[in-house]
């Protein structure tokens, strides 16, 4: 059986405790309520049951979506109890607070007691202790106590752990223990949970989560924060040099990647290609590859040349955005057709020259010379549309996250210790017996895995008896 008898003291004979409870002042009663395991179990059950609601009711959806699913009365009822964002509702946070208070109070109540028993262990095997222990063994031995004591001490140290020796009224008590730190396992776990909560609060108060779309070649330093908070301006900016995606032969996505540069005071200070599981971090702000897309309104690539064919410049025309060509006029791309009169992709361009009415023309992709027939000073040829990609970045700053990991580590370590390490203790009492003989009484206890300890206890004692009987022969009294 692996029960922890020592923690049980607070719950033994519950009816009697409750009777006594009524006689106590209110403050004591409130305290006893806050430190009770009963409360802990109730909070755990209520947390578990209410958490189910938020998995059945979709969270944080727009109201229209809920109205499609629920009748008005149901909508109003669910909304009243914040069930559309229940994990951030006042009542759920209140439950978590109560849970934290309960954990903290349990620790305040019990930890000092544990520290006391660990620092001042019961190192004397008196009669009351002996009676309370189920594992005991007695035998008689030769020799007088002061001389034999060293043998037993050495044997116990060799076979189990170095004992503490206490002498009282001619009786010698040896006390040895192992795994005493397992007594702190549960407290480490509970502290770990509280630390995780603290980390989460730190992250919520001092951090932010945001999202930004950056087109290829553009940079951004201005983020829209989520949850109604105002926007965030980073002290640096991030440039998306290029976003791309790769697919497997069957077309499923293989890789989403963005080549990012961190720009500070106009200089590139860091460059990294991020992918979905490989973010970029700079000054505590993390950028995660989260989505991508094509920018609205692709740009049309138009090459401009003179009649004799010498190139002048290349234009990137955004729909309806005028582009000025010095000494010529203003050009706008206004329309695009995938298949213009059966001749393939074409772009409609409006040309405005000073002092003349605007003229418009269609230029065909793949027919660069066609525009020559216009006999204008400049010739336009359409080289195709380029849809600009943008990368969608999740941006987060969470100064509490390492606190959360610390809590998790403590929680797990504490759990392992409290499940798998047993605090085992062995007492040996040497007391004077009849006819110059010595009476030896041994006792043992373990706070968990008792059946395994029974075997350890038996083998340790057998070895101690063997060790000490050897010395009997070597040094006959």
């Amino acid at each position, binding site marked *: 059986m*692996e029960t922890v008898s020592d923690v049980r003291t607070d*719950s033994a004979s519950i009816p009697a405790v409750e009777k006594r409870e009524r006689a106590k002042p209110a403050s004591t009663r409130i305290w006893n309520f806050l430190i009770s*395991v009963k409360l802990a179990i109730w909070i755990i059950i209520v947390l578990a049951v209410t958490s189910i609601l938020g*998995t059945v009711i979709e969270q944080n959806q727009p109201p229209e979506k809920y109205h499609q699913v629920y009748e008005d009365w149901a909508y109003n009822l669910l909304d009243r109890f914040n069930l559309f964002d229940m994990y951030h509702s006042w009542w759920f946070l209140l439950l978590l607070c109560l849970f934290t208070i309960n954990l903290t109070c349990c620790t305040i109540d019990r930890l000092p007691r544990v520290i006391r028993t660990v620092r001042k262990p019961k190192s004397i095997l008196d009669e009351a202790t002996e009676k309370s222990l189920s594992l005991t063994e007695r035998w008689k031995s030769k020799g007088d106590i002061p001389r034999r004591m060293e043998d037993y001490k050495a044997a116990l140290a060799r076979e189990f752990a170095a004992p503490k020796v206490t002498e009282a009224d001619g009786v010698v008590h040896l006390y040895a223990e192992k795994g005493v730190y397992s007594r702190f396992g549960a407290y480490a776990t509970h502290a770990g949970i509280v630390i995780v909560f603290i980390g989460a609060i730190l992250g919520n108060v001092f951090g932010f989560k945001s999202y930004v779309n950056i087109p290829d070649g553009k940079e951004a330093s201005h983020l829209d924060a989520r949850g109604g908070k105002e926007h965030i301006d980073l002290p640096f900016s991030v440039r998306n040099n290029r976003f791309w995606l790769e697919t497997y032969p069957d077309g499923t996505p293989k890789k989403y990647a963005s080549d990012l540069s961190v720009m500070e005071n106009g200089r590139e200070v860091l460059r990294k290609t991020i992918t979905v*599981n490989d*973010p970029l971090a700079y000054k505590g702000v993390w950028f*995660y590859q989260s989505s991508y897309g094509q920018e609205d309104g692709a740009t049309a690539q138009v090459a401009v040349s003179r009649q004799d064919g010498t190139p002048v410049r290349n234009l990137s025309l955004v729909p309806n955005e005028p582009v000025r060509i010095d000494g010529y006029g203003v050009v706008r791309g206004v329309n695009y057709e995938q298949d213009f009169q059966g001749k393939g992709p074409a772009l409609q361009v409006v040309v405005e020259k000073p002092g003349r009415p605007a003229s418009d023309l269609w230029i065909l992709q793949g027919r660069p010379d066609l525009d020559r027939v216009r006999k204008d000073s400049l010739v336009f040829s359409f080289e195709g549309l380029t849809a600009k990609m943008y990368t969608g970045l*999740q941006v987060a700053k969470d100064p509490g996250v390492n606190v959360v990991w610390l809590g998790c580590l403590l929680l797990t370590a504490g759990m*392992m210790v409290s499940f*798998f390490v047993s605090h085992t203790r062995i007492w040996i009492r040497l007391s004077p017996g009849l006819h110059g003989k010595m009476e030896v009484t041994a006792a043992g206890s373990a706070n968990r895995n008792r059946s395994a300890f029974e075997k350890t206890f038996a083998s340790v004692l057998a070895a101690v008896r063997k060790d000490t009987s050897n010395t009997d022969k070597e040094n006959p009294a």
Partner: protein
Amino acid sequence: MNTLNVQLFDLTTLLFGGASGTFIAAMYGKKETLARIGTWICVAAAIVSTAALGVRWVESYKMGIGRIPVTNLYESLVFFAWSVNLFYLFVEWKYKDRSFGAFVIPIAFLTMVFAFTNESGIQPLVPALQSYWLHAHVITCFVGYAAFAVSAGVAVMYLLKARQEKAKAKDGIVARFPSSKVLDDLVYRAIIWGFPFLTAGIITGAAWANYAWGTYWSWDPKETWSLIVWLVYAAFLHARITRGWHGRRAAILSIVGFLSTVMCYLGVNLVLSGLHSYGG
């Protein structure tokens, strides 16, 4: 024509079916020899399924999409059955008792049958799953699930045994079970193995989510259900350790815990929507 790994998994399914049948027959017929055969079939199933996992891993590399075979519903089911079987063999070896087989191995068998009805092809990994965290996350979770499955199987045995002991009856199959004290202890022990693994599974999942999306906890249905499972077993441990809940109540809690585990593992994917890909 299925690839070699799927054929091996199909063979594993047959072996689990054979072992389940043998264990149940041994229980009814009170034949120790049959139960011993059941054990050997389980050992064979362990070898075949381990080989199948290895072959599947190699095949994925040959397809140019090499990755650990625990990334979709089919793979997670066979991996779960694999874990349950190994955990069972460990318990049987440790307790030197074969009567558990009839209650635990059918869980592995039914899981494999369910896997059989699912798409078994090797699909490439989507970008979100391409992480080393995947290994740590999936393995810890499934060892935890397997331990909870064993605990629940033993809890059912406990309930049957305790009822018989109360009636002071001494016949039938149940009489051949280990004593209710041993069963009660095993219900607890399987949970104290499963609980740290589940905890590690939740933490590695959170660490992974934080590394991929910048949020370690987003109250996604899968996350929430894993927390619910965690809370149920936390309640079990507190009730048992500090309030002395043993026997019947502990066994029922263990079964409730496993039902919520099944909900977390399968229910969330089949019924609710969320971030976890398998089961679509």
